[in-house]
């Protein structure tokens, strides 16, 4: 298992420092197996909130804040909840800079979380600078 800021994520960071680009606060999830790598540009088997349908992207707009882990405001945090409208097992998730499609900022894979229709996952995703 791995959790990474992707190469595309570095592009986003430098762009945002220049005051351009779009904030990566859109949450997506996927259902396929794999170990996250910095070269990844997509999730593993990204799915809609209806996990039972074919692949697609319908990212959930999260709420971003700056948090303090070690020193003031050293942490970028996005929280958001995705509710499944069809059953499936979520194996990975990430942040994108668009509501659909877009560029993958960070990604993590994890032990599968089985969801039935109506179940939801509240994600809290943090990237800590140090």
């Amino acid at each position: 298992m791995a959790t990474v800021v992707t190469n595309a994520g570095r592009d986003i960071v430098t762009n945002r420092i220049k005051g351009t680009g779009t904030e990566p606060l859109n949450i997506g999830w996927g259902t396929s197996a794999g170990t996250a790598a910095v070269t990844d540009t997509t999730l593993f088997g990204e799915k809609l909130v209806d996990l039972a349908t074919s692949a697609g992207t319908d990212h959930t707009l999260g709420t971003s804040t700056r948090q303090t882990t070690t020193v003031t405001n050293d942490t970028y945090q996005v929280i958001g909840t995705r509710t499944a409208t069809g059953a499936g097992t979520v194996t990975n998730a990430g942040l994108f800079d668009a509501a659909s499609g877009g560029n993958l900022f960070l990604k993590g894979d994890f032990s599968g979380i089985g969801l039935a229709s109506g179940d939801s996952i509240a994600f809290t995703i943090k990237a800590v600078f140090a």
Partner: protein
Amino acid sequence: MDDAGLSQIRKITIEATVTRADGTVEELGVIADSDWEKEETDGDGSDERGT
């Protein structure tokens, strides 16, 4: 902050709380963790982090 005064994204975590359709809440805590700080000290000292 390292000795050179450079900063980078040092750690990424994904936490999850599952709420079932019947209202049952399952606090899963951290489900994904870059754990870079550990990796930095468990090998040959090379930088194994993802960025």
